[in-house]
């Protein structure tokens, strides 16, 4: 029987179930706890927090998560890998260290901190060196938004995490590591895979992709046979049980709810998929058309046959920039003729906005309960018992958006009838922080690993 390494997922995004990390370390054996906190938008939110307070800029949920698993890490040898560092991994490490002292385990918590992904201070230097940082989707040059950039982080791979583990860290905190690297790195470390063993590296990436969204592969948000998925209230988060040859199983702790089957795993495999022949990461390009998935017992799925090839010489950079303001207002119109009343209210609102001379980059109307998410495919909404009118606007000018937020409430008394659902007050104006994907040469990015010491 070959050796098995178990990596359990405890968070799939910042805002995920607070109970999950503790349940992963208490429900049965795992070797590594993987916590993924970062989405495209998260980095810019964290950057704003850091601007207000230089000791912030990381996912604060992580400190609570660590407190709930300290004993497993300190006494049972479970190691934690998390991209909770956001735009300030050292501050995150300091907060975890402070919490560890409070719990009397500081001497047994060795925190490895990965930095080097933050390229915000280097943007002009990179531009001067000929790195265009053009938008990957629209090809626009960075100059379009240069003066509005809030944060810029390169997606980094498994290398520095492995380095931290080799230096004896039992908690590894990174900034913008790829989600998949958090799972692949401990496998690379444990099995000592060669850095050009493309098939095994690709297997580690696919394992990471399957568990990076937490319960979304173990019965959560699963369409297939959703009525019969047992005990979602007690849903078990996924665990990768990997072997040295790159074969792995997806399972969950016994006695937990949810389900792991070929169907639940494949639903997650296709999530956010682009070209399946080339799933590009900093360490390897995985071929999703090579993945073999088979049921291997109750709540147990075998994944094998994965192939990979060498990565490109670029890293993706996630740049966040200020992109104006937006607000969304809603009202509920009720039978009879709910949809017609809602349509009339939308026309009245737009006429008033127009007469006020307000100009928006975009104004978008939806009729929830009729056509909001499925468009004309959903029919025309006639005879609906109630329809929510939802109007959103966006503009570079805050005052324009503010004025819009004053135009919703009056409709309750001076617009079409049978209207309700205005308990929440005026819509809030929020600043839009948009996302600009770009590429940078790998040789421009140098990561660093430090063992935290107060």
């Amino acid at each position, binding site marked *: 029987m070959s050796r098995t390494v178990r990596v359990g997922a405890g968070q799939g995004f910042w805002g995920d179930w607070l109970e999950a990390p503790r349940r992963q370390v208490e429900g049965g054996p795992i070797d590594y706890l993987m916590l993924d906190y970062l989405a495209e938008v998260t980095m810019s939110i964290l950057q704003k927090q850091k601007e207000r307070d230089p000791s912030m800029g990381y996912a604060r949920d992580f400190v609570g998560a660590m407190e709930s698993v300290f004993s497993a890490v300190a006494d049972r040898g479970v190691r934690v890998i998390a991209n909770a560092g956001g735009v300030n991994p050292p501050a995150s490490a300091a907060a975890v260290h402070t919490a560890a002292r409070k719990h009397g385990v500081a001497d047994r918590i060795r925190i490895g901190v990965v930095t080097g992904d933050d390229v915000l201070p280097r943007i002009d230097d990179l531009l001067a060196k000929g790195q265009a940082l053009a938008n990957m*989707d629209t090809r626009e040059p960075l100059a379009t938004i240069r003066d509005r950039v809030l944060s810029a982080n390169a997606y980094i791979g498994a290398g520095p995490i492995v380095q931290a583990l080799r230096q004896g860290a039992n908690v590894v905190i990174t900034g913008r590591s790829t989600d998949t690297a958090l799972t692949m790195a401990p496998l690379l470390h444990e099995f000592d895979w060669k850095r050009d063993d493309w098939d095994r590296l690709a297997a580690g990436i696919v394992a990471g992709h399957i568990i990076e969204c937490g319960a979304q592969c173990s019965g959560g948000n699963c*369409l297939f046979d959703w009525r019969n998925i047992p005990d979602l209230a007690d849903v078990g988060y996924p665990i990768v049980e990997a072997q040295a040859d790159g074969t792995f199983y997806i399972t969950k702790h016994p006695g937990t709810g949810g389900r792991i089957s070929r169907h639940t795993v494949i*639903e*997650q*495999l296709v*999530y956010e*998929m682009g070209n399946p022949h080339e799933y590009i990461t900093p360490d390897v390009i995985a071929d999703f*058309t090579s993945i073999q998935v088979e049921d291997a017992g109750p709540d147990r799925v075998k994944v094998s046959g994965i192939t990979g090839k060498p990565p490109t010489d670029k890293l993706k950079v996630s740049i966040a920039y200020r*992109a104006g303001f937006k607000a969304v207002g809603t009202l509920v119109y009720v039978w009879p003729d709910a949809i017609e009343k809602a349509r009339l209210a939308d026309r009245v609102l737009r006429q008033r906005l127009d007469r006020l001379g307000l100009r928006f980059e975009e104004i978008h109307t939806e009729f929830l309960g009729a056509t909001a998410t*499925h468009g004309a495919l959903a029919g025309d909404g006639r005879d609906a018992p109630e329809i929510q009118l939802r109007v959103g606007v966006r503009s570079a000018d805050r005052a324009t958006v503010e004025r819009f937020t004053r135009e919703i409430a009056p409709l309750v008394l001076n617009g079409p009838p049978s209207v309700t659902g205005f308990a929440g007050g005026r819509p809030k104006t929020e600043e839009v922080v948009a996302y600009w994907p770009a590429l940078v040469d790998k040789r421009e990015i140098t990561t660093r690993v430090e063992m935290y010491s107060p």
Partner: protein
Amino acid sequence: MKVRLVDIAHARSGDKGDTANVGVIAMRTAWYPILERELTTERVATHFRGMITGPVERYALPNLDALNFLLHGALGGGGTLSLKTDAQGKVFSTALLRMVLDVPDEEGRTLGLPRGGQ
């Protein structure tokens, strides 16, 4: 016979910028060839006409009994720029499953396809 896609396949969708992806998966391996034959790029583009502003791309994953569709220009700018309820394309999956397929009676019976649709 008419077959509702929702009765023979499941799906999940997500976003990348202003592009939504829809992965559609046959409920049984034996039913996958129906998807591969019937869900052409053209038919899916027609299905989503008016809902997306860009082209449709299709990839086949016979190993997973799945097809992956990329719907470009689906999300009103995508991410935080979007004013849509479904800014991250989470329910384009079930929008695709609204399709009704025409399958020869003989084949439908042999494969045990559930009859449906009008």
